[in-house]
């Protein structure tokens, strides 16, 4: 019998549906793989019972001849930013340690309704702030990939969805949820040789997802194929009246409509993305990507996104500003940590609780955010950043006159060793230089594996499409996937 953990979403779903194996067998196989992979530290808590119960229900439904959901029998990892009812939800922070929500996030509920089960809550950067999964209160996540130099240096799995990327790359989950604020799905996907898509802002409900930066946060799937991403995104997306920014649109049949024939399509190559300091191998893989898309029938056009350079600094004003306010609710009154020094008053309790409960990166961003919103600085920083955001949006609007989607690298480098950039916040922020513009403009964007670099580490290519056109992004991703022939997987060391 095939090793069930080598299978992806569609293979599992179809195998369960046609009786090749049972959902319970699948759940047990992944539960075992998860239990054996503790060294990766991909999960904060595991929930084997949840996976098993969901599988039993799917098997029973199948036996009863009921119609099965899009994700029936597929056990997945859930980023620990999604509230899961009665299952600890921490955002990888100490301040939420032990918090068990009395509610289920819309996206996770949709996945359970579609027949998926939960293997556990995946580690991440604390409050999704970070690009290496080193800011988690529950420890670093190790990238399952290692350099081919014989060294055992642990590498970053990317962030913030680093537990998700590591789990999917290590085959301990066929797929996982991620969230992307400035690149948190795409960058870890690139670092671990998997696929991930951030849909148009508003496609997936934000209800029940611990907020980082409300105007940027979007959930999306991470899996090992474009098709698996499409299937899972269909299960996650959809209008939610509980989220004011939720798009009131039907969910298209993305998976069924996948088409790698790009004849008549134009791919835009933004010249501003050829930045100084970008890894030569990254540039080379970009050229490969251009050639593959040409081969798939697309016409290549040179485009300009003139404000690209300003996207990252604008992001590092807007995201911390929103975060400083979104994270004000963690105050030790209604849930989570309370640190009450002797004789402390209410305000002292807040300051002590938040000092003890937040990690350094979270504090750093709260302080920056507090500063840029404070009296006298608001216009110079926040308003200016929101104006630049308008310009970035306009850049893309102009680009869509000339092309149907954009191709660019996902990241400026391959995965780096844990600890490498920890002392230099700015160097860490630069990881998101290619992913942030699409986030600021709310556009659908995806990373797919393009190959390995000379160190044997995966590199990703990014496709950005116009708002609402996830199909264009998925189709281009599929065309690359078919030509890149990326079959490499990390050698098991955990």
């Amino acid at each position: 019998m095939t090793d069930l953990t080598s299978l992806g979403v569609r293979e599992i779903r179809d195998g369960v549906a046609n009786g090749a194996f049972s959902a319970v067998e699948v759940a047990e196989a992944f539960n075992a793989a998860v239990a054996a992979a503790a060294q990766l530290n991909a999960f904060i808590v595991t929930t084997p019972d949840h996976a098993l119960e969901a599988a039993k229900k799917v098997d029973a439904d199948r036996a009863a001849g009921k119609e099965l959901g899009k994700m029936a029998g597929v056990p997945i990892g859930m980023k620990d930013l999604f509230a899961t009812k009665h299952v600890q939800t921490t955002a990888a922070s100490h301040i939420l340690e032990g918090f068990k929500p009395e509610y289920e996030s819309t996206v996770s509920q949709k996945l359970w309704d579609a027949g998926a089960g939960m293997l556990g809550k995946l580690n991440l950067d604390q409050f999704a702030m970070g690009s290496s999964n080193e800011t988690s209160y529950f420890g670093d996540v190790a990238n399952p990939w290692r350099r081919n130099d014989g060294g055992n240096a642990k590498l970053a799995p990317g962030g913030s969805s680093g537990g998700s990327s590591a789990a999917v790359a290590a085959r301990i989950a066929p797929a996982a949820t991620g969230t992307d604020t400035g690149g948190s799905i795409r960058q870890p996907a690139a670092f671990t040789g998997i696929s991930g898509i951030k849909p148009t802002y508003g496609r997936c409900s934000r209800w029940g997802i611990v907020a980082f930066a409300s105007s940027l946060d979007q959930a999306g799937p991470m899996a090992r194929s474009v098709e698996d991403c499409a299937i899972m995104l269909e299960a996650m997306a959809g209008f939610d009246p509980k989220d004011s920014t939720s798009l009131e649109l039907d969910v298209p049949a993305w998976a069924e409509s996948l088409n790698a024939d790009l004849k008549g399509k134009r791919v835009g190559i933004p010249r501003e993305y050829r930045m100084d300091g970008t890894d030569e191998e990254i540039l080379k893989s970009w050229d490969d990507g251009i050639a593959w898309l040409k081969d798939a029938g697309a016409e290549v056009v040179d485009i300009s996104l003139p404000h690209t350079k300003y996207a990252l600094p604008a992001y590092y004003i807007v995201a911390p500003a929103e975060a400083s306010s979104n994270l004000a609710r963690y105050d030790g009154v209604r849930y989570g940590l309370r640190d009450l020094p002797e004789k402390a008053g209410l305000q002292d309790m807040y300051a002590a609780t938040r000092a003890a409960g937040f990690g350094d990166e979270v504090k750093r961003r709260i302080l920056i955010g507090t500063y840029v919103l404070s009296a006298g600085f608001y216009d110079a920083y926040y308003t200016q950043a929101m104006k630049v955001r308008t310009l970035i949006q306009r850049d893309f609007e102009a680009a869509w006159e000339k092309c149907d989607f954009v191709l660019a690298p996902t990241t400026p480098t391959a995965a780096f060793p844990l600890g490498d950039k920890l002392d230099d916040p700015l160097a860490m922020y630069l990881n998101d230089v290619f992913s942030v513009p699409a986030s600021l403009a709310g556009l659908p964007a995806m990373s797919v594996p393009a190959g390995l670099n000379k160190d044997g580490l995966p590199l990703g290519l990014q496709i950005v499409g116009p708002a609402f056109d996830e199909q264009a992004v998925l189709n281009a991703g599929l065309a690359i996937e078919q030509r890149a022939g990326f079959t490499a997987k990390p050698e098991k060391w955990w």
Partner: protein
Amino acid sequence: MSNYRIQGATGEWEVVIGLEVHAQVTSKAKLFSSASTEFGAEPNAQVSLIDAAMPGMLPVPNRECIRQAVRTGMAIEAQINKWSRFDRKNYFYADLPQGYQISQLYHPLVGEGALTIDADEKVGIPEDKVIRIERIHVEQDAGKLMHDQHPTMSYVDLNRTGVALMEIVSRPDMTSPAEAGAYVRKLRSILRYVGSCDGNMEEGSMRADVNVSVRKVGDTELGTRTETKNVNSVRFVMQAIEHEAQRQVDVIEDGGTIVQETRLFDPNTGTTRSMRSKEDAHDYRYFPDPDLLPLELDDAFLEDCRASLPELPDAKRARYTGELGLSDYNARELTAEVETFARFETLLAATAKGIGKPEKDVATQVANWSLSVAPGVIKALGDEADIAHATAERQASILDMQAKGEISGGQAKEIFEIVLKEGRDPAEIADTEGLKQVSDTGAIEEAIDTIIANNADKVEEYRGGKDKLFGFFVGQTMKAMQGKANPAVVNQLLKEKLG
């Protein structure tokens, strides 16, 4: 101009007052969650996950709250902003679970408007005065802290958290406690007419933040102001101003300066004091709430709001004095409260219909009945009265009988008394209790003839020119008729018979 002055040691001072009134919007559910707004529930029983600011919770605005705020804006003839936006006001407090209040700073829903407070010589408002209103914005209410239930802890109840408020901000156009009192009363009346706030100040449905500064008479620059928070009755608003203005004058005259600060009113002492908990200078870091898109209203929505507006207090008063011919006093009294005019108008319609005359012909009779006769009877009866018995039909029936001369004013009161106690039909009461006037000329003539026969001397005097004796004959006749004769008929017959 009001002539309210504070006599200081260094001269005369005047006071400048602006009010920020927080009015709870009448709605079933909260502004951003579907938890109930009902008053008086068990602690934290009406709290949603959203109100408690659980991680990942999001706000979705309640259309009714927006509609009521727009209607209120229209009622004060204010600019309605078709494009507005919610902002976050960030600060930390135990009654504020999110760590921010969703409010509107930069782009409020309602812009410039005004209301007119009515002249009232008695309290020093010589003429009608327009008070400008700067804006009305919509925001969330905070929760409640209980300080005296535990020795070392305060208790937090979030039932009020997220209830919709309108913050109605006046210009500093008021110059005396009386004007401020009149403003709050007028505003309350408008809100209640519109139905956008129940105006129940005891339950906290309306609270005022009172901004007060003082300056020497003749100065044009404004002095430093203080803001006294959450004053919850008209009387307290006036007391807070009186105290605060006097305090400021005292401070300045003692060589001190006024600090711009937040103060608290103590209803027990009628004084204000600095609020310790709000001492540190706030930097609210307002910014647009990224969970909410801009609020855009279309013409259909605005048209619906406008079409649903009732006749407002000023217009109603003008109609009462103009069309209905009521006195200024009656018109003002009848239009002050929603319940009063509603009862009056129902009774007026029923009475006019019963008598078969236009409303204006019976309006004064109904007004007098509503404002003095009926309340007098009710008050005299005290606990014996069951107001529920006093339906419009029953009262109209009494007024009808009175207008037709079937009963006297005194009988009307007696019948109403029985109605209030027993809920019986007035016509039936008049019949069975003998509470009817006799208009039958035969019986009255008989009585008059007897009186004339028995008082020949008085008749002589009267006929000799002593007109005043007419009253004597009326009295004698009424007495003989046991008070039940129709006075008009008595008068007429006496005149005929006495010659």
